[in-house]
C-alpha cells in the first residue's frame, strides 16, 4: 500500500478494526448463548476486513471512492447504514450511561441531543476535520483516562482479588453494552487520530488501538472487583462509573470523579459518533448520483431508527447480536466493495491535514 490513503478509507479501516473488541468484552455472553463460533465471528470478520482491505487496496488504488460505478454503489448500500447504525448506537449508549448517573433530572433525549448535535456539527466539516478534532482532543481523553484509573487506587483492596473465583468473566458480562462505546472509542481514537495516512501507519495504529482497548477492558474489569469485591461488583450496571463514583476529594473543585468520567465519556462518544456520521455521510454521498436522493435518505434514517429500538435497556442480547452482525457485514463488504470499485492508479494527492 504505497501512497497516501484517502481519509475515508482510513476511517473505514478504523471502523472495521473497532469491531474486534466486541467479543473481547463479552466472552461469557458469546460462549453461553451462541457458542465459540459466535465469539470467533467478529474476530474473523475483522481479520478478513483488515486483510481483505489491504489486499483490495493493492488492486483498487488508494482512492477508489472518487471513481464511482457499481463498486461504490455497493459500498454505499452495504456500508453506510452499518456505519450510521454505529453512530446511533453509540449515541444511545452514552445517553443511557449519562441519564443513569449524571443527567438524572433530564429526559433521555437531552444527552442524545447533545452528543448528536455536537457530532453532527463536527461531521459537517468532513472526515478530515473529524480527524483533526480527534488529534486535538486525544491528549484530553488520555489524561482523563489515566486520572480515572489512578484516582481510585487508594480504594483498592487486593484481598478482593484473591479467592476461589476471581470472576473476571462475570464482571466482563456485567459491564453491559454501555461500556462498549468507550472502549471502542479509544481504539478508534488511536487509529483515526490524524497520524495514519498510509497503509503501514494505519495498520500500526490499528494494532496499538486493539492493544489499548484490550488493556482498557482488563483494567475496567479488575478495578471494580478490586474495589467492591464480590458479589457487589457483579451487580453494577456501569462498573467504571461506580469505581470513579467511589472517589471523593473534598479539596478538589469537583467532589466526585463521576463528573470526570462523564466528561471523558462524552468526549469519546462525541468523537466516535462524529467520525461515524462523517464516514456514513461520505459513503452515502458517493451513492446519491446513482441511487437517488430518496433511497439514500432511507438508507440514512433506517439504521438510526433501528438503533433506537435495539439499544433500549433490556435489549442487551439483541444489541450484541446487532454489533456482531455489523462486524461481519463491514468486514466482508469493505474489501468486496473496494475490489468492485476496480483498480485505479495511485494519484496520491495529499490527504489534506491528515499527517
Amino acid at each position: 500500500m504505497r501512497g497516501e490513503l484517502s481519509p475515508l478509507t482510513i476511517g473505514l479501516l478504523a471502523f472495521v478494526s473497532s469491531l474486534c473488541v466486541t467479543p473481547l468484552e463479552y466472552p461469557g455472553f458469546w460462549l453461553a448463548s451462541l457458542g465459540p463460533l459466535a465469539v470467533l465471528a467478529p474476530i474473523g470478520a475483522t481479520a478478513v476486513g483488515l486483510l481483505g482491505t489491504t489486499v483490495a487496496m493493492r488492486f483498487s488504488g488508494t482512492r477508489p471512492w472518487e471513481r464511482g460505478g457499481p463498486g461504490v454503489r455497493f459500498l454505499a448500500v452495504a456500508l453506510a447504514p452499518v456505519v450510521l447504525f454505529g453512530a446511533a448506537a453509540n449515541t444511545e449508549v452514552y445517553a443511557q450511561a449519562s441519564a443513569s448517573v449524571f443527567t438524572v433530572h433530564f429526559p433521555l433525549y437531552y444527552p442524545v441531543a447533545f452528543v448528536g448535535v455536537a457530532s453532527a456539527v463536527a461531521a459537517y466539516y468532513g472526515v478530515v476535520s473529524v480527524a483533526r478534532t480527534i488529534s486535538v482532543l486525544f491528549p484530553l481523553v488520555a489524561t482523563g483516562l489515566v486520572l480515572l484509573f489512578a484516582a481510585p487506587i487508594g480504594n483498592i483492596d487486593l484481598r478482593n482479588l484473591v479467592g476461589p473465583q476471581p470472576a473476571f468473566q462475570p464482571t466482563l458480562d456485567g459491564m453491559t453494552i454501555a461500556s462498549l462505546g468507550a472502549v471502542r472509542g479509544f481504539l478508534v481514537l488511536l487509529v483515526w487520530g490524524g497520524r495514519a495516512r498510509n497503509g503501514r501507519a494505519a495498520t500500526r495504529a490499528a494494532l496499538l488501538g486493539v492493544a489499548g482497548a484490550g488493556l482498557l477492558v482488563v483494567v475496567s474489569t479488575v478495578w471494580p472487583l478490586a474495589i467492591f469485591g464480590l458479589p457487589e461488583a457483579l451487580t453494577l450496571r456501569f462498573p467504571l462509573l461506580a469505581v470513579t463514583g467511589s472517589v471523593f476529594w473534598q479539596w478538589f473543585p469537583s467532589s466526585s470523579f463521576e463528573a470526570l468520567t462523564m466528561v471523558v465519556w462524552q468526549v469519546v462518544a462525541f468523537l466516535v459518533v462524529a467520525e461515524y456520521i462523517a464516514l456514513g455521510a461520505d459513503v452515502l454521498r458517493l451513492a446519491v448520483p446513482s441511487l437517488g436522493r430518496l433511497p439514500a435518505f432511507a438508507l440514512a434514517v433506517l439504521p438510526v431508527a433501528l438503533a433506537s429500538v435495539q439499544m433500549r435497556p433490556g435489549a442487551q442480547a439483541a444489541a450484541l447480536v446487532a454489533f456482531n452482525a455489523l462486524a461481519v457485514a463491514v468486514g466482508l463488504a469493505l474489501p468486496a466493495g473496494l475490489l468492485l470499485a476496480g483498480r485505479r492508479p495511485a494519484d496520491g494527492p495529499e490527504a489534506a491535514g491528515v499527517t
Partner: protein
Amino acid sequence: MTPLHDLRSHCERLLSRVVANLGSSEDRSAGLGTPAFSAPDAPGLSGYDVVREEIALRDGGHVRLVYVRTLIEVGRLWHEVVLPLATGRADLATLVGAEPVPDAITVTRRLLAGHVALWGGPGGPTRTVNLSAQIGRPVGEATTESAVSGPKAAFVERLETNISLIRGSLRDPALRVEVVIVGRRSRTEVALCYVDDIIRRELLDKARAGLEAMDVDIVRSAADLGSQLYAGTWTPFPLVEQTERPDKVVDALVSGRLAILPDGSPFALVAPTTFWRFVEDSETRVLGPTAVVFARFMRLVGLGAATGIAGLYVAATTATITILPARLALAVGASRAGVPYPPLTETLFALIIADVLVEATVQASKQVGTALTIVGTLIIGQMLVQARLASDLTLVVVAASVIGTFLTVSPALSYALRLWKYVLVFAAGLGGLSGWIAGWLILVGHLAGLESAGVPYLSPLGPVHLDELWRYGLSPLPPQNMVRRPRSWRPRDVIRARPEKTR
C-alpha cells in the same frame, strides 16, 4: 543684470501669464500641442483643488499642466517642474522624473496619486511627474500591541513608510514587495510582501490572484481586505492575523508566511495563521523561552476560563450541583440566597450588562472610559448585589470572564470568544455540565473545520506536528534550538538555524 535677476524677472513674467483653473477641457483644447492620446486632460476630474495651469516657455510656446493641489508638494512643483521648463533647462522629454502616459485613464489615476500631468510644447506626448505629498504621521509606538522590552515601532498609514520599516529589519535580497491596485474607486495600493525562497508558491499565487480578482468599491481597512480575501466558511474567528508591529511581520515573513499591507491602514495582514498564534506575542519572545511557555500557558488557561467559566457556573449551580464538594455547594447556595432568578437568567443578565459596559468603554474616549469604569464597577455592580438581582459570586464569575477575554491581542478573537461564552451559558442552562461540554465540543469541531489560507486552524495540534508543537509551543529551550521553520506554513526552505555553526 545678473543671470539670477534675469531668471527671477522671467519667472515673474511667466507667473503673470499663468492661467489658473482653466475650466472645462473643451475651453483649453484650442491652440495646444497635439497629445499622444485622444483625451489629454483628466476627464471627469474637477474640484476646488484640481488646478489646471499653463507655463509660458522662453521660445513662446506653452506647457499645460494639471494636478490636484492637495495631493502634491507645491514647493517641489516649482523647483522640479516649473523652473526647469520655464528657463529652458529641460523640456518634457528631458525633465527629471517625467514618465510617458499610455492613455487618459492612467493620467487620471496618476493625478489622484499625486502626480502632475504635463503636455504641449517641445518634448513629445503627455508625461507625468510624481510629486505626491508625504502626508501622514511619523512612526510611533504601537497602541494595540504594546511592548515593554520588545521593539516599539508601529506601522503608520503610509505604505512606503511601512515597507521601509520591514526592509529596515529584513535586509534580505529575497524579500519581495509586489503592489496590486485594489478598489474600483479607492484605487488603493496593496503591497504583498514575502521572502521569495521561503514562501510556499501556492499560498503566494492564491493571494495574488485573490487580490487581482477583488472587485470592490473601496478598501476600508486591512481587516476588510482580509475578510474578503480569505472568506470561506462562516465563522466568528479571525482567519488572518492583523498586526501593527513590523517585528511581528518580519517574524512571519521569515517563517514562510505572507504579509499584506494596504495603503492608508496602520495594520498589516499576515496569512496563514492558526488559533495558537493569537495567544502569542512578540514580547514574550524577547523575554526568553521560559517566559514564552509560561505566558502561553497562562493565556490559554485564561482564555479558556474566560470563555467557559460563566457556563460552568451555570451548570454547577443548576442541574449538576452534586459535582461540587459539599462546602463549596453550601457557599454557592448561601451566596445565591435571596436572588429571585434562576442562575441562567441571573448570569445572562450580569453578562449582558458587563458586555454593554465593555463596548461603551471601548468606544468612549479615555476620560469618559474611566468614568464608565467607575460607574460600571462601583455603582452598577454594587447595586446589582444590594438589590439581590445577582449574587456576588455571579459578579465575580462574570468579571473574571470579561477580563479573560482580553488576554488575546486580537479584537476579532476576543469578540468570537465573548460570543461563544453565551452559547456555553445557554447550553449549560439547558443541560447542565453535559450541555456545557457539548458546547465546547461544538467549538472544537468548528475550529478543527476551519482553515486559514489552506492551513488547518488548529495546527500543530490538529493535525499533530509533534516536533513543532514541542519546539514552538511547549519547549522552554532557547530559540537557537528551533532548527526548522514551523511545518504548519509548509515553507520551501525549512532550515531556520544551524546551531553547529552558531556555536
